């Protein structure tokens, strides 16, 4: 058996080892369940409260995906505009940097004033948090597109939009897909932040209530679920990335 064969499982082995050490540590040192529950305890809580947790998880997932979609769309459009036009870049960039520097949790109360508590502020928080990384990446991709490649299209009489479609966008696609993996995990952060402040459904809400009830295993079950959802979505976009922009990998296997 070669090391290459088991390499894909290293990450799983690593996670299992960490959880195992955690379990061992908690039992060995007799840590109180109110401070740090053992994995067996919060997995137990996860199974026991499965239906209730799924009720909240569904909401979080749904909110995140919608917010992510909105944020990525806006970020993509802004990125193309900023990358393609120097004046757009110089006009909007400082404002966006300023906006992005504001902690997103500070925006939630404003969204609540405007739209009431619940799904809408969570969707918005999740959206605004992922606009920036997508935009910066896409703008970098657009701005570094080789002039020669654009000339190939222009010499055929292609319009600006066609040049964008046939050259600039495919050329920036790798940057875009790389940013999606970051954006989706940030989107979860945005959703949960908003849920902990102003919502009555969602993993964030559930964790706040559980901590008020001193149900620490449930809090950790929530954390674990968030981590799991983040990994699944990250992996999902990594697979899509590999399919769509595999040409950047220049891996001979990919072509045929």
């Amino acid at each position, binding site marked *: 058996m070669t090391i290459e064969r088991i390499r894909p499982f290293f990450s799983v082995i690593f996670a299992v080892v960490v959880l195992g050490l955690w379990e061992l540590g908690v039992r060995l040192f007799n840590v109180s369940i109110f401070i740090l529950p053992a994995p067996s305890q919060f997995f137990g809580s996860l199974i026991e409260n499965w239906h209730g947790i799924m009720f909240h998880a569904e909401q979080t997932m749904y909110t995140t995906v919608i917010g992510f979609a909105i944020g990525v769309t806006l970020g993509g459009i802004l990125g193309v505009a900023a990358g393609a036009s120097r004046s757009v870049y110089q006009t909007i960039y400082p404002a966006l940097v300023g906006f992005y520097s504001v902690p997103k949790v500070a925006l939630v109360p404003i969204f609540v004033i405007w739209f009431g508590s619940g799904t809408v502020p969570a969707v918005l928080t999740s959206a605004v948090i992922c606009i920036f990384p997508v935009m910066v990446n896409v703008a970098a991709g657009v701005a570094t597109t*080789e002039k*020669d*490649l654009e*000339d*190939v*299209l*222009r*010499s*055929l*009489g*292609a319009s600006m939009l*066609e040049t964008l479609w*046939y*050259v600039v966008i*495919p*050329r920036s*696609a790798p940057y875009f897909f790389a940013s999606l993996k970051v954006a989706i995990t940030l989107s979860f952060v945005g959703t949960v932040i908003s849920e902990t402040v102003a919502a009555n459904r969602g993993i964030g809400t559930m964790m706040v209530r559980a901590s008020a009830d001193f149900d620490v295993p449930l809090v950790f079950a929530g954390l674990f679920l968030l981590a799991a959802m983040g990994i699944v979505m990250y992996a999902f976009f990594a697979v899509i990335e590999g399919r769509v*922009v595999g*040409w*950047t990998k*220049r891996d*001979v296997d990919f*072509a*045929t």
Partner: protein
Amino acid sequence: MLNPEAPVAADPLDAPAGAGSPPFLAFQDVVIEYGRGANATLAVDGISLDVADGDFVALVGPSGCGKSTLLKVAAGLVPTSSGTVLLGGETVTRPQKNVGMAFQSATMLPWRTTLRNVLLPLQIVRPHRSKFRREKAANIKKAEALLASVGLRGVGSKYPWQLSGGMQQRASLCRALIHEPEILLLDEPFGALDAFTREELWQVLQQLWQEKKPTVLLVTHDLREAIYLANRVVVMSARPGRIVHEERIDFPRPRRLSMMFSAEAGAIMERLRGKIDHVSLFGDEAAAGEP
């Protein structure tokens, strides 16, 4: 001291090759300046050149003399600072549909297979674009035939980065030809290739030209290439580029590579080289002499 303008032989330049018919491509007192103010670069200074329909003209000159610039102006990619370029009787102000262009680097789109790279012009250029989907099978067949004609049979499904530089350059030639342009603008298309591949592609290009008779303007820094391929070789001076000499090449076609070893070809080569050396000497002298 000699006037640097003196070598411009008025005679051969004023008589277009296909005397009688109006030129298909005409540069008229073209001046091109890049940038503005203090860091402006005068790339091309007053070029007039007529290219008859179906003619094959090679443009040679020291590097940086504005050869690529001139091609880009003809393609409508770069505007003239003064003077006009006429293509088929109309002033070129933007890219035209009947132009095929091959660039100094192969410029394949890396996310498209070779076949889809070659098909690109058919997706963009009118009237092909409107029937691209309907005639997909026919288009693919055409692209594959073209690829086969330059020795790239069966590589259509490969990505550009899976091809050698020479293969990419061949494919880029196919892309320039697929929409059957009336004029080919070729910018040192074989510059980056090894000698054997280059000579092979000369033959391929000559054959393609003899079959379809497009008008060709070929930029090259290889005098042998110019003599082997062209009907007329036009020599440009060092930057700012001016036309300083023209040579007719009347060898019968199809030309053979062995032709290059004939005394006649040698004499032409000598003359051209002399003009280019002459030119760069002048350039240096002028630069040194000026305060």
